């Protein structure tokens, strides 16, 4: 069951009604049972078991860490508990990848010797809740938060269904107090929640899944294309990924809001970032904060004596690991490495950049900001080639053929552009697709203008027109053939 599935439209109201019906002291139990049922709907029995184990282990470990006196013992307890969580993650998600690559390496030295490859395991949500468990333990160690005393509240903190599958990765200090707080029905919370949910559904099922028609034919068969189709598909993917993930996040935030819980906002106009550092302050915010707090900062602290070199190295290592987190594939590792490299390079030239801008008198110019935003966006799109490509070979083909529009002089057809247009832009005989896209973009623009709070402050008739408009746009234009979210696979 995903947020955009038919069954979720029954599941959510049932949980909401049950939640309202029970006494306040049992509400956490309703949500906890609903969360495990939600996870159970994936029909992978091992996953709820792993979640239960990680929850129980982290709860007990958290108490031990909290009670341990400051010093080596406390540190050892933290290390041990983090390692256990990481071991579970590596075993479930990365073991096949590690064994495959080990065998490749061993094969180079001794023919015929190979470690038996294990069966791949389904690892949906593991990356998210294990990182959440690690942040809980680390926060206790660093004194940021105390150990949770109520096992039920902690279990709910770990498994809360709106954020279980794809985050946001919530900090204990942000979510646990909300779980502990007595619930009072708030009509505005429900209004906000529903609007966020349906807005997210629109972004996913109408916008992102429609953009996929431009991306999938190319990225699923890259060798058939050179030049412009590769460029269009790459830029289109940037928007598909954003609308898909932002759509999910809005649906998660909206679902949580129905229960009076405010989850972390995960996006803040990421393609308006004027640098890679700014991009990571706006994209997948809960994840970037996690890697900043628990990987980058400790490494930077450890290597502070190396100055800029230490910072640069810390960035490269952090984003290398971030690439790994996204998937057990070298394409993700390269994607992470590229981001780390761009960030590392920025640490060196940033001071010189400021001086240069001041000298040229353009430091306060709007045009320099526009230029920086454009450059950042294009570089981010370039890294998406590795993020989306199925293999390194495919990614390399794309990189080396992006500007290869003259591969064959004789026919226009051979560069794939006319086929691309025929197959994708006129998809399903709907020549209206451009009109739909323009309308959707206009609506996105208008609603974007109001997205923060102002729509709900508008007059009733305006709001209801927008509600019906959104509802019918979803009903009429949704794509039903792509049920899964992209970040589901991470």
């Amino acid at each position: 069951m995903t947020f955009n599935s038919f069954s979720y439209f029954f599941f959510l109201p049932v949980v909401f009604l049950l939640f309202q019906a029970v006494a306040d002291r049992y509400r956490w139990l309703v949500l906890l049972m609903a969360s495990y049922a939600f996870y159970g709907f994936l029909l992978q029995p091992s996953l709820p078991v792993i979640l239960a184990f990680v929850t129980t282990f982290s709860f007990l470990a958290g108490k031990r860490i909290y009670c341990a006196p400051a010093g080596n013992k406390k540190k050892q307890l933290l290390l041990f508990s983090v390692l256990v969580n990481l071991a579970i993650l590596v075993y479930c998600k990365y073991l096949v990848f590690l064994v495959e690559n080990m065998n490749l390496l061993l094969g180079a030295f001794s023919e015929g010797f190979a470690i038996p490859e294990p069966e791949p395991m389904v690892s949906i949500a593991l990356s998210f809740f294990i990182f959440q468990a690690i942040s809980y333990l680390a926060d206790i160690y660093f004194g940021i938060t105390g150990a949770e005393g109520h096992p039920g509240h902690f279990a709910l903190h770990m498994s809360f269904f709106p954020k279980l599958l794809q985050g946001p990765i919530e900090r204990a200090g942000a979510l646990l107090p909300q779980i502990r707080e007595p619930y009072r029905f708030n009509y505005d919370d429900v209004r906000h929640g529903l609007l966020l949910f349906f807005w997210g559904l629109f972004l996913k099922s109408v916008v992102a899944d429609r953009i996929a028609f431009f991306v999938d034919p190319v990225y699923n068969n890259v060798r058939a294309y050179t030049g412009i189709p590769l460029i269009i598909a790459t830029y289109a993917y940037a928007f598909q990924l954003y609308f898909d993930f932002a759509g999910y996040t809005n649906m998660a935030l909206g679902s949580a809001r129905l229960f009076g819980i405010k989850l972390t906002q995960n996006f803040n106009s990421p393609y308006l970032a004027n640098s890679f550092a700014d991009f990571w302050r706006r994209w997948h915010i809960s994840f970037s904060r996690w890697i900043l707090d628990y990987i980058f900062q400790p490494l930077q602290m450890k290597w502070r004596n190396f100055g800029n070199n230490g910072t640069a190295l810390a960035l490269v290592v952090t984003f290398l690991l971030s690439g790994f987190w996204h998937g057990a594939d070298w394409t993700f590792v390269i994607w992470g490495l590229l981001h780390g490299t761009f960030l590392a390079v920025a640490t060196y030239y940033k001071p010189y950049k400021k001086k240069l801008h001041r000298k040229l008198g353009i430091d306060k110019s709007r045009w320099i900001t526009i230029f920086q935003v454009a450059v950042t966006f294009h570089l981010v799109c370039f890294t998406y080639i590795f993020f989306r490509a199925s293999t390194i070979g495919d990614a390399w083909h794309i990189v080396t053929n992006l500007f290869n529009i003259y591969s064959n002089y004789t026919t226009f057809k051979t560069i794939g552009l006319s086929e691309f247009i025929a197959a994708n832009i006129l998809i399903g005989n709907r020549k209206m697709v451009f009109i739909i896209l323009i309308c959707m973009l206009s609506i996105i623009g208008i609603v974007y203008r109001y997205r923060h709070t102002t729509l709900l402050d508008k007059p009733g008739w305006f709001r209801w027109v927008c509600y019906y408009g959104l509802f019918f746009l979803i009903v009429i234009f949704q794509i039903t053939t792509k049920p899964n979210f992209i970040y589901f696979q991470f």
Partner: protein
Amino acid sequence: MKKLFIKIILFSLPILALSIVVEHILRKIPNDFQSKAEQYEKHAGDFKVLCLGESHAYSGIDPRYLDRRGFNGSHFSQTLNYDLEILKKYASDLKNLEYLLLPVSYGSFTSRLENQWEVKNYTLYYNIRGNHNIRYNTELLSLPLESSKEKLISYYMDHIEMTKTDSLGYSTYYNKENPDKNLVELGKKMAVAQTGKNFDNVSKNVKSLEEIIKLCGRKNITLILFTTPGHKEYRKHLDSRQLNTMLTLSKSFARKNRNVHYLNLLEDSSFIAADFYDADHFSSAGAKKLTAKLNRFINEIDVSDKRKTARMSVFGSP
């Protein structure tokens, strides 16, 4: 909370009203089920030969080539339980029916329409109410909204003809050339698609066929079970267990019931590539050939039955 429920109800009312209107508009779009149901209403009493069954019959039986007044009452994916339901529904109207042609194909005993979207066609247009799931009692909920939207646009805006059946029930879908006619690929694809994952439906389908046989017996209708020809590229991918089950059951029904005959044309070499639309459905040329073969078979049975009747009238029953 009360305010929330009131607002939700107020929001939902226009949507519900619109859904009812759209449902009504969708049902008004002409379709093959509706047109065949109308033919039954108007002409059931005239039919001497009725063909039921699935797409093999739909593509393979053109009643124009029958000597007797015939009607093709088959549909894509129609299974034995719905053959029975249609027969039961119109039994009293089919006063002059002499022969019932029923294809028994490779998938006839393993597949069964019970909880699939196609059920709504029988509920809405034949008024055969077997399934109480609300999804299968409406046009709007039985398929993804995208399909309903496409249907509305195709009919009301693009004015595309939605029925693919002539007045005798034969499908006009197969009259055109198949641009993707790769018999090697299609043969394997169709055989695999029709191979059942389990045999759970066999006993239920056997029961349905037994009821059809009983009904035919009561009405003095001769039932002709036939297996349509299949191209060799299709036949070579058929699962032997499933195929043997179908053949054994079909022969057994013919052996045990006097009013039942079985004609196995699966490996009939007179059908060439040009007779096939794809590996197991027929072009118009193939339909003409197949219908003519069945027509001759009916005539032979007719002659044989008349001789038996004549002998009995001279010598008395044994």
